[in-house]
Structures are given as structure tokens and as C-alpha cells.
């Protein structure tokens, strides 16, 4: 394993320092380090952050390898500065058994670009009827701690209560996709001014908020950890803020796209803007930014959802929901949170690495950038300005809402336990991951 001397990196945006890495561990931090390294990296002007952790991705394997594979998905993750991603359970077959979660975990290990932590389904087949074997998934090689029926809501209050209670036995957490199903039948976009004008079925904010309100009460009642996926409305933020003020064990995430985009974009009927939960209003975007800034929302999670071209290049109602997000996440957060003065780089490290790692109970990730810690690092160039070119992505899919948009910042290098997965902005070849 090579050793690396990273020169003049601004750790969490602080003063420039050198970082010496060998055998997968941060060995030394200081100015003008003199140790001998196999590779020197000039990190002048670059910010060093702990490797990013994503609580919410769809890697599509097994089943939809036309959209993404664990290999291409983790390559995209590495290019985005991530060293660990959670892979949601809505694959084919569904990740509702120890066998499937172990398969996904092993695919991640084999790919080598990023740790893949499978999320187990809460219920068999994501059908919301019968608990999946949560204990078996936890006891498997994948050691699952986050359980979610993401894409579908665990809408039955009794099933949700039991799941929350049951996972306490192994310090698990239920990550809820909050969507009241009856209120969202035929839903195509945020219900509001724009949906009314466009004649598209509405997805009302209350359908998210009603489930979150119920779930925080359930979590408090049974004393279990609840995590709320992709919070998208100002009302949801208020409920979570209230639950946290009560001291209840509730955490929440927001996607980069909900921090930047609004439902006005749907006026184009371009299905690249179709996502679940839907893009909301400018007031919601503002509330989400404030909540991420003050810690009410704990984490940024991409909800990276690759889809093949044909599932987006069609009429709105027929299109699939979701956006790719791994390779643009940090840039969007820089634009929405850092350049607006809402979050400094220390805050970014907290919301994109420390806290998500803690929620997922991921050992070795989300650690401080300090001596003796595993060398999971990203070097980010915040001064870079470039246009988003989907064709340059590592993900197999191209369904990004940022095509042609100028976004700040670029990942220069990513290290996974001391091994570079990205250098000078380019993926390291699979054979060289050692």
C-alpha cells in the first residue's frame, strides 16, 4: 500500500496543513512535514473533508443493471467524494433477506470504490404487510442496521410500531419514506399553484407531514430510533424540530435537489424533474436550508436514483421518479449552503459525514480528520466553476436535473482507507485499487 503526503490542504476549511497517510491511516498532520511518501499531492487551495457518507442511494443491483450496478454506482460515489453509501432495498429481488443484503455487500467489497452498506427492507417485498427477517439481515455479513421500505411508506401504524420496537434489539433504525398512500394516489408533482395550472395530480405536503407526525409520536412512545428520509416540506421541518425539542430519538435527511430546485421547473413537463418526494416551493427550499443549517435536519442524503433514458424521455405521467445525485451532491451543497453563508466546511463535514455515519452506526466513517484515524478523506476544490455534463458521469444513468447548469466546486481526490479511488478528478482504474 502506497503512502501519500498531501501538502497544504485546508482541513475543514482551516489553515493549510500537510497530511501524511500510510497503511490506511492518517499518521501525521502539521505544517511542512518532511516524511518520505511514495506519492506527493499538492493540495493548495483544496479543502480536506472526511470521506462523505450517504444514507440513501439506489444502486439498482440486483435487477436493474441497465440503470446502475454496484460498480458504476460506487464509482459515481467516489467521484462525488463518498467513502460509504447505503444502498436501498428496492432491488429485484427486494433486499428483504440475509441472502440479498449479503450479495449487495459483497458486490461493494468487490468493486472497491466505496463501502456499500445495504439497507434491509422493513417488510417482505416492501409490501407493508409482514416484517422481513430484520434480525437475520443484521446478523449477516452485511450487518444491516438501517431498515427501510424506501419508495414505499410503511403506512400501517402497527407494522411501523413493531418495526421500530423490534430493531432496538440490535441498535437498528427505521428509515421512513413518509408518504400517506391514499392522499397521493395518482400524484405526479407537488400539490400547489403549479400542479393546478398544469393539470398534474397533486402530492400534497400534508401526505408527508401526517406520516412524520405519527412516526415521531410512535418513536417517542416505544423509545426507538426513527430516521426520516428525504424531508421535503417546511411543515415536516416544524414537526421534526418539535420532536427533537422533546428529546425524542428522531433524525432526518434532505436531498441536494430539495435544497436547490422548485416545482416551477415542472412547467417544462421535462420528466428529468420528476422525483419522489416531488420538488416543492421556494418557501420549502428556504425552510429546508435553515433546518440543515441549525441541525434540525441531520444529514444530506442524495437519494441517487438512476433510471435509463427511455424511462425519462417520455410524457410526464409515464416517466419514472428519481434523479442521480452522487456526483453533484457536494457542489450543490456548496452552492445552496456554503455560498449562502448558512454552513461552513466544518458544518458540511458534520452533515455529510459525521452525522450520517453515526445514524447508520458505520464504524470507521465520519471520523475526525486527525492522527490515528482511518484515512477516509476527500480533497475538494471549491474554487472550480464548471458546467454539469452528464455524459462525463461515472453513473450509468444520465437523469440529472443539473444538465448545463454551472455549479461550484469539484472533487479532486477521494481516499478510502488510504487508497485513492479518485485522483486529479479522475477515477482510479479498478486494477490500481490497492
Amino acid at each position: 500500500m502506497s503512502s501519500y503526503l498531501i501538502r497544504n490542504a485546508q482541513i475543514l476549511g482551516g489553515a493549510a496543513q500537510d497530511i501524511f497517510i500510510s497503511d490506511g491511516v492518517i499518521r501525521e498532520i502539521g505544517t511542512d512535514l518532511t516524511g518520505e511518501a511514495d506519492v506527493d499531492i499538492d493540495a493548495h487551495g483544496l479543502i480536506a473533508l472526511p470521506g462523505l457518507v450517504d444514507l440513501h442511494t439506489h444502486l439498482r443491483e440486483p435487477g436493474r443493471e441497465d440503470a446502475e450496478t454496484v460498480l458504476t454506482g460506487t464509482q459515481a460515489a467516489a467521484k462525488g467524494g463518498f467513502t460509504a453509501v447505503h444502498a436501498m432495498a428496492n432491488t429485484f429481488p427486494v433486499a428483504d433477506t440475509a441472502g440479498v443484503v449479503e450479495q449487495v455487500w459483497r458486490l461493494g467489497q468487490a468493486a472497491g470504490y466505496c463501502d456499500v452498506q445495504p439497507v434491509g427492507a422493513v417488510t417482505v417485498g416492501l409490501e407493508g404487510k409482514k416484517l422481513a427477517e430484520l434480525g437475520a439481515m443484521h446478523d449477516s455479513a452485511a450487518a444491516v442496521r438501517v431498515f427501510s421500505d424506501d419508495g414505499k411508506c410503511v403506512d400501517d401504524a402497527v407494522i411501523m410500531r413493531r418495526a421500530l420496537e423490534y430493531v432496538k434489539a440490535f441498535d437498528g433504525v427505521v428509515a421512513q419514506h413518509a408518504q400517506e398512500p391514499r392522499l397521493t394516489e395518482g400524484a405526479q408533482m407537488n400539490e400547489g399553484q403549479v400542479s393546478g395550472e398544469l393539470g398534474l395530480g397533486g402530492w400534497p405536503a400534508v401526505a408527508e407531514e401526517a406520516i412524520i407526525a405519527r412516526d415521531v409520536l410512535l418513536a417517542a412512545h416505544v423509545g426507538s430510533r426513527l430516521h426520516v428520509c428525504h424531508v421535503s416540506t417546511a411543515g415536516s421541518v416544524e414537526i421534526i424540530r418539535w420532536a427533537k425539542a422533546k428529546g425524542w430519538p428522531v433524525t432526518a435527511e434532505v436531498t441536494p435537489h430539495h435544497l436547490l430546485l422548485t416545482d416551477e421547473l415542472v412547467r417544462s413537463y421535462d420528466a428529468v424533474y420528476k422525483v419522489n418526494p416531488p420538488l416543492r416551493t421556494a418557501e420549502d427550499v428556504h425552510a429546508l436550508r435553515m433546518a440543515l443549517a441549525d441541525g434540525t435536519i441531520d444529514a444530506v442524503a442524495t437519494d441517487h436514483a438512476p433510471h435509463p433514458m427511455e424511462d425519462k424521455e417520455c410524457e410526464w405521467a409515464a416517466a419514472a421518479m428519481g434523479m442521480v445525485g452522487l456526483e453533484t451532491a457536494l457542489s450543490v451543497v456548496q452552492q445552496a449552503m456554503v455560498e449562502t453563508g448558512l454552513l461552513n466546511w466544518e458544518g458540511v463535514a458534520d452533515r455529510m459525514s459525521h452525522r450520517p455515519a453515526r445514524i447508520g452506526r458505520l464504524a470507521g466513517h465520519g471520523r475526525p480528520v486527525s492522527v490515528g484515524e482511518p484515512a477516509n478523506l476527500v480533497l475538494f476544490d471549491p474554487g472550480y466553476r464548471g458546467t454539469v455534463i452528464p455524459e462525463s458521469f461515472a453513473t450509468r444513468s444520465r437523469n440529472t436535473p443539473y444538465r448545463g447548469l454551472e455549479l461550484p466546486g469539484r472533487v479532486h481526490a477521494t481516499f478510502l482507507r488510504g487508497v485513492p479511488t479518485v485522483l486529479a478528478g479522475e477515477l482510479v482504474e479498478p486494477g490500481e485499487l490497492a
Partner: protein
Amino acid sequence: MRHLVSAADLSRDDALLLLDTAEELAQLSGRAVKKLPTLRGRTVVNLFFEDSTRTKTSFEVAEKRLSADVVNFAAKGSSVSKGESLKDTALTLQAMGADAVVIRHHASGAPARLAQSDWLHGSVINAGDGTHEHPTQALLDAFTMRRHLNPGLGHDLAGRRVTIVGDILHSRVARSNVLLLNTLGAEVTFVAPPTLLPIGIENWPCEVSYDLDSTLAKTDAVMMLRVQRERMNAAFFPTEREYSRRYGLNGNRMARLPEHAIVMHPGPMVRGMEITAEVADSPRCTVVEQVANGVSIRMAVLYLLLGGATLADTPRTESPETVA
């Protein structure tokens, strides 16, 4: 203007030009030979993904009166029903040299998607998309209103009060009408139970009322929208009879209208639901007239989009062919 996707695409001048052109073209229907050579050699495709007898027939008659080559491409029985995408259908029509595509689609936004894509180079004419818009219906409605309420070329509908009653939430007719009527200066009031009004309606350029009776006395044209019986099952209203009592137009209610006011309906009517037979068959009801006007309006749309002509270029004398 290349496409007609939304009534919002039309400026006041555009709208008046269309109405005036339709007025000129309407004279044709009085002749023994109802044909103009304007679109000879041009191909117009009627691409209907949703069943429609009236609109499709109306477009077809309009196209034929302008001598276009008409191709009917029904989604049923074609490759579309075997899973062909909108894109591939469009590319196919492009390859066949369609100069215009008249599209009816069950998905809101499908015509907008076609118009913005580079799949087709011809004009896209929206013949009704989902619960979004139906601009030629709004044009024929405005044409009918103008004839009754402010007749004359170049006239608009300034100050005329139009009441639209029924399932606004699911109505593409209501959406296109409110846009076009505002462009033409009319004042629009929607009357419906609150369940059948879209969220955000308070920001639309119209008044909203839950009470039909109080609105009728201040109405120059009342437009009754069809209410589908299946809405009842989704709890939009309790029963057919209750809907009819509160929001249906019967003889007593019609008597509250000012003397000059007209009763309109885009069809198909559900007699006994939103409109009684007494009203539907009364001389104030313009349903049949609207159908005839639909042909003139669709001719005007095709004429102006495909011919690229202005009203001044409209042939005022009969060409040899139409005489022959």
C-alpha cells in the same frame, strides 16, 4: 407561431386574428362546395391516444375542407398499443413527413413535450391533454360567445361575464378557457363544490363561488362542464342527485339568467346531471352551434399555423378550384 399547445401561447392579437379568420372561413360552410385548396399537398396527422369522436371528427372535417392530406393515427390498434414510446411515434410521423400533428393524449403535457422536442419538425396542435388544456375548445367557445355577445370582426369580449360550472379540477376546457377569456378581456367565475376546484385557485385570474344561484344573475354566458359519475366514488360529492340539486342547470335556474345570456356546454352532455333536457334543448343553449364553430376555428388554426398567412392573405374571392 409554430405550435398551439396552450391558450397562454396566444396574445390578444393572435386570438383575434384566429377568431376573425374563423369568421371568414365560416362562410365556406354555407356553400355547396365547402373546400379551399390552402393545404393541398400538406400532411396533417391526427394522433389520438384517447378516444374522442367529436374533436377528432371536427379536426378531420377542418383538415379536409382545407384540402390537406389527412392521416388518422389512433393509438389503439397501432404500435403504440404494443408499447411504442411517444418519442418513437413522433420520429415515425416525422419520417413520414407530417407537416402538422394534432395530438390528443391522456397525459397532461404530452403535446408540450412533443413541441419542445426535436423529434418532430412540424406544428403541434393540442387537441386536449389530460387535465391540462384544450386550446381549440377555448377558441371555439370564445368564437361562439363573441357572435352572441359582441359580434363583429376585431371585437373582443371585454367586460363580458362568463360563469363556468362543474368539475374545474379535472377540466382541460376550464383551464384553457380561463386563460383565453382573460386575454380577451372577459371576467370569469368558476362555480363548483370545493372538492372539484384545484388547490391554488385563489391565485387564478378568476372569481370563485360555491353558489350557482347567486352567480347566474350576473352572467352573460354560462358554461356547464360534464361531471363524470365515477368522481362520486372518489368522494368528490355525495350523490348524483345532490350534485344536480346544487350545481345542475335546470329551467328554474336558467330563468335567473339575464335575457341575452347563453348556455354553453363543451359536450358530451350528461342530461339529468349537470344540465336538464329542458335547458339542453332550449334556444338559449349553443351546444350544436359550438360544434359547427369548432370546425371553423380548427380550420383557422391549421390555416394560420401551416399557411403562415395573415388575415390579409385570406382569399376573399373563390379560387377556380373551389368553384369547380
